[in-house]
């Protein structure tokens, strides 16, 4: 058989890489544990621990905390991408990818697209747990899908930042600890779990700078009003900007690695 070589195009290469990462995940279902257990645990703990103190009851707290935990889970699922990329780099398998005549963004993009599945699972788990605890959004199912997509897109955009971290860090352990800290700071220094007016002035200032606050606000607004908002559009623009900046940076870091 004569081997036919055609220049692989970026989309095809990325699809193949995404397929590879999906296969890896399917062979190792443990990879899903974090995105399944974490939202359930946090939703239960935070809901029942702080519900009374913050909102006067679990039911009243759920509209605040469901979007909060949803985005927190997106952030933490996104950190997984960085750790995975670092592991691949350390295993030497990226050497082979690099020596192949394919687009350099494909291995990275493939990883991140495959990770969308993790984001999807995390989203479904978060929302389902909220529902089981008594969360009943007033808007139709269509809007739930909209906020789910918004959350997933945000998580996906942010995972490019974690991918860059993964490429720059020295080890998978370093990626994990830096990512964990970033995730904790971003999610807690926001309106994810507490109303902003309850914060001290400097803290409120920081929370207002935190992009996570805007994403959560946008989701709460959609859920409250049942309509697309200016804030939601802002989030989409922000996500696109993050990808536009961090995707090229990530490829640059990959090339110099």
């Amino acid at each position: 058989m004569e081997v036919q070589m055609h220049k692989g195009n970026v989309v095809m290469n990325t699809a193949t890489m995404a397929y590879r990462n999906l296969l890896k995940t399917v062979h190792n279902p443990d990879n899903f544990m974090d995105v399944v257990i974490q939202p359930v645990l946090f939703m239960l703990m935070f809901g029942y621990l702080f519900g009374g103190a913050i909102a006067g009851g679990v039911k009243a707290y759920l509209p605040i905390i469901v979007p909060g935990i949803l985005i927190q889970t997106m952030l933490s699922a996104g950190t997984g991408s960085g750790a995975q990329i670092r592991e691949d780099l350390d295993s030497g398998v990226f050497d082979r990818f690099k020596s192949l005549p394919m687009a350099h963004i494909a291995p990275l993009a493939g990883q991140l697209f495959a990770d969308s599945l993790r984001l999807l699972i995390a989203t479904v788990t978060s929302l389902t747990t909220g529902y089981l605890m008594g969360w009943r959004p007033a808007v139709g199912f269509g809007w739930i899908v909209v906020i789910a997509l918004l959350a997933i897109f945000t998580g996906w955009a942010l995972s490019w930042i974690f991918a860059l971290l993964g490429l720059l860090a020295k080890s998978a352990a370093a990626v994990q600890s830096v990512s964990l800290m970033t995730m904790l700071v971003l999610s807690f220094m926001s309106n994810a779990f507490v109303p902003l007016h309850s914060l001290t002035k400097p803290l409120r200032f920081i929370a207002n700078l935190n992009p996570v606050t805007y994403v959560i606000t946008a989701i709460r607004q959609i859920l409250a009003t049942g309509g697309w908002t200016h804030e939601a559009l802002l989030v989409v623009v922000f996500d696109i900007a993050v990808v536009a900046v961090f995707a090229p940076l990530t490829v640059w870091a990959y090339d110099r690695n």
Partner: protein
Amino acid sequence: MTNVNAIEVSHLTKKFGDKTVVDDISFSVEPGEVFGLLGPNGAGKTTTLRMITTLLKADAGQVKIFGHDTVKEGRLARSMFGLTGQYASVDEDISARENLMIFARLNGLSRSDARERTAELLKEFSLEESADKALKTFSGGMRRRLDLAVSLITRPTLIFLDEPTTGLDPRTRTQMWDTIRELVKQGSTIVLTTQYLEEADQLADNLAIIDHGRLVKMGTPAELKREAGGSKLSFTVAQAAQVAAAAKLLASQVTGAVRQVGQQLSVSLSKVAELTPILAALDHAKITVNHLSIQEPSLDDVFMNLTVGKN
């Protein structure tokens, strides 16, 4: 394309910080030959190979693969070779078949071509039985075979092997050598790095000995051995009292220096024919010798003479 060298390396240099790990290395590899980069651990073999295969940017110098500059025409150059790294660069979590399929697709093969090529390679490398098992259950040898199979998907005419047998048991090593010889028979050009002299001797047509980032010697294994000196004669004198007499006798027969360790004497011979008069003289002087042996020069001698290693 008739007279183009498979690889042309000129003045390749790499520094890590202020340490020069590859220092102005130049060599060329002709199509169809097996070229060995030989050197102790940390000599710069792998770094050199990584630069040639575009995995690492050189600080200075140029590499051409079949006439194509690896920097200016990187993608084209990359499409012309296969690489098997020092550490098996295959996916642990997925099966051998899946690995081959994915890499075939990434190399631009259509789905049906990829399936066909995967089946061929699994058969060729006797991996059919374990094709669908997780790689975690694979032995070191199987992993290496799969790794090599992956680099052969596109039937590259130029193959880089970075320490292809490091960590393999002797039987698997011999199998790997057979596989490499088979590839040569099919017309492939092979560049391999190794720290095993025997491997270089067995496989390589041409050798470059690298130490401390410098190319210290180049030539065929036979040439290098010839330079290391002729055959070595050694024997043990049976009676301690006769050692001095034997050494004196030996010195009168040959030009080289006589070395003495305890009752053992050794000397370099320029021709094996020099042996007969030595034996006759020993017999005449009634000196009994044991453990007489003649050793051909080995690459070990060359290697030891030329390299200092990391320490």
